[in-house]
Every structure is written in structure tokens, then in C-alpha cells.
């Protein structure tokens, strides 16, 4: 057939375009139940907040591949917790969710509300399964179980807030270096002593960054005798303007007015560097920093549970292994459960704890040989274990980003950094939070 050059060019272009379209649809559909030749393939997203976790998990996944040739795991490093949530959300919208992912435990309510996650209960049928579920510290499980008793998460890489103090400064200031402040009065007195007696620029750092202010505030509320959990079990009732709430914030703000702490933002990320550089004598931050302080401190230091007041205890934080639903078959979910069990054995929980500073998630992990040897060498590592005994749940609500980061954190910061009235700020936060949560009840 004789075609003009024009028509031929056109035909060629059309062909090329069809080919391009064909390619994209061919690579797009993996589909099915992920099973092929008896091998089940699953995706596993894991974040890394501290910089050491991803290497550890890579190693575990290699071991898993040897032990379970019938399951093919594609491990995807997904940034920090917030980036992981964004990545998982996108995957859910495309109906290609990972079978398993480590998520920030406090995202639970949002994910459950959107029916994005699957409960673990149907997969934990044997006695051994239930024993595995019950082996984790109940303090860590409190953020993983819904109001109706459904289990949505398995603790992995958990932490809590602890108190670090510079023993050299304490000695220089004439304080007992082995005795950390145990109450608010002592805390203020010691902080002042460290400044005047040892020449520290600041006495006490309690980070006020947007991402973590609520977390430290929870501990202060608990110490003031209030309900440090702030949110109820279902996450839809939040109290931030009680007497104790106000008292806690007034105390926090008083650190700035007494010149013990700066009235500018105490940045979460760099506060550990400031402690290491001797800028502050006392620091409240995550137990996850023990490792890096251990490694870098050029002075004698101690770590303990937070001081107590009318109440005692700090919130937990960290990750949960969660099962996802969008586009994940039953077979893949079962494979994900197998992987989760593999990742949370006492030996591996101890290994994660020793190498990253996270708190081992079960009593069995604390009793492993590796852990005992580690504790003999580094007695400081015991402090977070002691702190877990009194730990309280982390504040968790649906629409968490709006409630916690967009409403509560700025309210706290307006008081701490700009001198706003605590009661007024908290009353306003309360009504704003109620307005957000109203749509979720």
C-alpha cells in the first residue's frame, strides 16, 4: 500500500505513543495475591528516626530471607515517621499498601478511622500467638489497643522521656553528682546551682519544638497531678485546660522567666548537641539518645527517670508494626505476621535496644544474655527500663496533625516563647481541639 510520507510519519507517532502507553500499563499491574510458585511477596516500609535502625533492619531482613525462603520481603526505607505516613498514604490511595510497616504508634486512630489498617486479632489464634502478643510491656501496648480491645500495633523501637544530667557540673556546683533532681523544687534549685556554681549557660533544657512539645508537656502535666495521657482511649476526648494542665504550663514557662532556660525555641534536634557541648546542665529528651551521648560525651553524665511531683511517669513514644489492608491478600498478611514475629523475638528486641538506644519491648528481652552483658558494661542503659514502670500512653487522637501539631504545639509555644497567658492559650486550644474532634465522634 502506498502511503504519503506525512501519513507514514503520523502512523509511526501513533504507534510509538501506543507502545509507551502499553509499557506503563504492563509495569503497573503487579496485582494478584502476591503469590508465585509458592513464594509470597510482601512490601515492608520502615522508617529510621535515629540513623542506626535502617542498617539493623537490613540485616534482619537478610536473616529472614535465609530462614523463610517461602516469603520474599521487599524492605523499603521510608524516611522518618512523618514521611513514612505520607508514603503509606500514597500507597493506600493506589491500593498497593505495604503488608507491614513500622508506623508512629500515635497515628493509630487516624489509620483505624480510615480503615487503612487490619487488626492483629484474627491472626493470633493459637496459644503461642497470644503469648507472643502478651509478652510486650502493657505500657507499650496501651497505645496499640483500641477502645474495643482490638490490637492494631505491635511495639517496635519504643522510647520514653528521661533526664540526663552533667555530673561534672554537679560536682563543680557542690551538688551530689549521683543524685539527680527528683522534684520540681530540686530541679529548679539544681539548674540554678549549675548556672551560678559551674558556669553553665543554661540550667535545664525541655525541648519546645513543634514536633515534640506536646510530648514533654504530657510529662509535666502528669507531674502536676493531672492526666498526662491528655487524650482518652478512643482519642476523641482531649483535656488541655484543667487546673493541672495550666499549672504544668505555668511551671514550664517559669523556667524562661527565671532564666534557667531560653525563651526562644529549645530545638529538639540540637538540644542533645547543646547538652554535649555543656551549654545546659540538665536535659529532658528521649531515651533513644543514650547511645549518642554515650559515644560523644566528654564529661561524666547520668541518666534517670524524670522527677516526680503530685504524679509520676512519662509518656512512651516510638513505633508499632501495623498490618495494612489496601490491596493486600490474606496470604500476604499472614506472611507479614510471620515477619513481625521474627523481628520482635527477645534476642532481636535486645539487639535493637543495645545498638540504637530504643527500649527493649519485653521483659524477656531485658533478660537475654546480650542485654545483661550490655547492662554490666553500661549501667546507664537501665534508666529507661526503670522509667517504663510508670510510663503513660502517648497523646493520640484522630486528625492528630491538626490537633497536636497545628493546635496544641503553637498554643504551648505562644506561652513559652511569646509570654501569652497560659490559661487563655489552653482554653483556646481546648475549644479549637474540640471543634476538630467533633467531626470524628
Amino acid at each position, binding site marked *: 500500500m502506498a502511503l504519503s510520507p506525512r501519513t507514514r510519519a503520523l502512523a509511526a507517532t501513533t504507534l510509538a505513543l501506543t507502545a509507551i502507553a502499553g509499557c506503563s500499563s504492563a509495569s503497573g499491574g503487579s496485582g494478584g495475591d502476591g503469590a508465585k510458585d509458592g513464594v509470597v511477596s510482601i512490601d515492608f516500609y520502615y522508617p529510621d528516626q535515629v540513623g542506626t535502625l535502617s542498617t539493623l533492619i537490613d540485616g534482619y531482613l537478610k536473616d529472614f530471607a535465609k530462614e523463610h525462603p517461602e516469603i520474599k520481603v521487599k524492605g523499603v526505607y521510608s524516611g522518618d515517621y512523618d514521611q513514612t505516613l505520607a508514603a503509606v498514604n500514597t500507597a493506600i490511595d493506589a491500593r498497593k499498601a505495604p503488608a507491614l510497616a513500622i508506623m508512629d504508634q500515635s497515628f493509630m486512630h487516624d489509620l483505624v478511622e480510615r480503615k487503612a489498617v487490619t487488626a492483629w486479632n484474627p491472626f493470633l489464634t493459637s496459644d503461642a500467638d497470644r503469648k507472643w502478643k502478651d509478652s510486650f510491656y502493657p505500657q507499650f501496648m496501651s497505645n496499640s489497643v483500641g477502645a474495643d480491645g482490638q490490637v492494631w500495633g505491635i511495639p517496635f523501637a519504643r522510647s520514653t522521656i528521661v533526664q540526663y544530667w552533667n555530673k561534672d557540673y554537679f560536682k563543680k556546683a557542690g551538688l551530689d553528682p549521683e543524685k539527680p533532681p527528683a522534684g520540681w523544687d530540686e530541679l529548679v534549685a539544681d539548674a540554678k546551682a549549675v548556672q551560678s556554681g559551674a558556669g553553665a549557660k543554661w540550667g535545664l533544657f525541655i525541648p519546645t*519544638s513543634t514536633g515534640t512539645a506536646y510530648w514533654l508537656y504530657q510529662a509535666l502535666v502528669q507531674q502536676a497531678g493531672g492526666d498526662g495521657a491528655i487524650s482518652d482511649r478512643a482519642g476523641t476526648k482531649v483535656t488541655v485546660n484543667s487546673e493541672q494542665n495550666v499549672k504544668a504550663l505555668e511551671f514550664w514557662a517559669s523556667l524562661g522567666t527565671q532564666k534557667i532556660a531560653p525563651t526562644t*525555641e529549645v530545638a529538639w534536634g540540637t538540644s542533645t548537641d547543646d547538652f554535649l557541648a555543656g551549654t545546659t546542665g540538665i536535659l529532658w529528651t528521649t531515651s533513644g539518645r543514650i547511645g549518642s551521648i554515650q559515644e560523644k560525651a566528654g564529661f561524666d553524665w547520668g541518666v534517670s527517670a524524670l522527677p516526680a511531683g503530685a504524679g509520676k511517669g512519662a509518656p512512651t513514644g516510638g513505633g508499632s508494626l501495623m498490618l495494612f489492608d489496601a490491596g493486600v491478600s490474606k496470604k500476604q498478611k499472614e506472611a507479614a505476621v510471620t515477619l513481625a514475629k521474627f523481628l520482635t523475638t527477645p534476642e532481636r528486641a535486645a539487639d535493637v535496644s543495645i545498638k540504637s538506644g530504643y527500649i527493649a519491648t519485653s521483659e524477656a528481652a531485658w533478660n537475654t544474655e546480650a542485654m545483661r552483658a550490655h547492662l554490666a558494661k553500661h549501667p546507664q542503659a537501665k534508666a529507661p527500663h526503670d522509667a517504663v514502670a510508670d510510663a503513660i500512653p502517648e497523646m493520640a487522637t484522630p486528625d492528630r496533625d491538626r490537633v497536636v501539631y497545628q493546635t496544641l504545639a503553637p498554643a504551648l509555644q505562644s506561652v513559652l516563647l511569646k509570654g501569652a497567658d497560659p490559661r487563655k492559650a489552653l482554653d483556646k486550644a481546648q475549644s479549637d481541639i474540640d471543634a476538630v474532634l467533633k467531626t470524628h465522634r
Partner: protein
Amino acid sequence: MKPRTSPRRLPDQVFAYALLVPAFAFLVLFTVKPLVSTVVSSLYDRRDEGPTLDNYRLLAEDEVFRKALVNNLLFSVLTVPVSLALAMLLAVLLQRALKGKALLRAGVFAPAILPVVAVAVIWLYFYQPNIGVINEVLGWFGVTGPDWLGDTALVLPSLMAMMVWKEAGFFMIFYLAGLQAIDPELDEASLLEGTGRFTHFRRVTFPLLMPTTLFAAIVALADSIKMVDFVFVMTQGGPDNASNLLLYYIYRVTFAQHWPQYGAAISLLVIGVLVALAVLQIRLLDRRIHYR
């Protein structure tokens, strides 16, 4: 030779449109379709029920959005003119025969080729209150530097300074190109007439650079709204939302809060503002531009 006649020939009109089809396809796929679906999505509520104007009603009373809008307007209104003025100044200075000219030009241009994230990480450490370079230098003169990123009053100006540093070098390149296009005879004429350097700049160079300025101003304005990577790295919009910018807020609403419908409503408003500003710029500046 006999003129070649094709057995089947497409009419010119049809052929022209046929050639445009791939371009149209891409335009529809990547511009028109997203725009239309953004409009549609913005009319649905969070559970995808609608259509409703709830998102726009919410927009009117959303304090964080208002704060981000004001922050972003301040950011744009200040960084765009300052970057351009500095770029023009640098270009005029570096155009002269100067020792080490190439090195200086490269130095000024260097920030422009760095990714925004890298710039943000560098400046994050410049700005650290206790271990940062800036306060270290201030310390030599006995000045205790403030906490640049931790102070609600200083955080936005600090980010603006960084943006100017990054953008000025980039626009300098455009001005250097613009200066090459100016006839050197004009320079000689001024020299012969004894016109002062400043008058020459004001009456000759500046007006002739206006087309470059218009182009650069529109690019800079778009940049000041779309380049927000540094907010992620440096401040996450804090403290107290003092450094929250529009696009960062859209990201948070759409992805972190998983509320794409509301994110779409905010996006449309931002696009509207951007288009209005660009039209205004072109209208205002066009009258004062001397095209040759």
C-alpha cells in the same frame, strides 16, 4: 522531472492538528486534567461527599492558613525586590574588567546551583544559637547573638536572608546576559558626553534591563511561593507557625493530615493569587519597558 504526487494526501489543516496531538495530549494529561480534578476535588468534603462549599467556608476561618498567607506575602514582597536589586548590582559590578572576575562570578553563582535542601542544611548550622557560625562570629565582637530560628520574630527574616543569598546569584546570570545585549556604543557616548556613572546607569542601563527584570521578577515571585523545601529541613513551619508558608501548609493538609480535598481548595486559591500577581506585574512593568 515529473512532480511527485502522493496517492493519498491529508489536507494541511488536518495534518497540522495531527502534529499537535501529542503536545495537546501532554497538556491535557499533565495540566488540564489535574486542574479540573483539583477544582472538582475541592468541592467535596473529607469523606468525599458533596458537592459542597465547606472547604472554602473553612478557609475563611482557618487561622493557620491566614498566618501562612500573611507569612508568604511578606516573604514574597520582601525577597523578590531585594534579590533582584542585589542581582542587578552584582551583575553591573562583575561586568567590568576586574581581576579575578571569573572566580567572583562563580562564587556568587554557586548558591544557585546548590539544591535548596543542601542550602537549608548549611544555613541550619549557620543559624544555630550556641554552635552556629553566625553567633560564633558575633561572639568575637562581644555580641551575644540571638536564636535566629527559635525566635518567633526572627525566624521569617532569617529564612528571607537565606533565600536572597540563594536567589541573587541566579538572577545575576540573567542580568549579565542582559548587559551583554546593551550596545557598547551607548557606553562610549556617555563617556564622551561626560555623563556620570550613576546617571548612565539610571538613564541607560536600568531601562534597557527592564525586559530582564520583568522576566526575573515573575520567576522570582513563583520561586518565593513554590520553593519551600527549606521549611521542611529548618523549621517545620514553627515556632508557633511563624515560618509556615502556603505550600508547606498545603503539603501538611494534603499528606500529613490526609485531607486532599481541603488541600485542593487552598491550592486553587494560591494559583489564583499567583496568576493575579503575575498579571499585575506584567501590566505595571510593561508600560515602563523599552523593547528594542
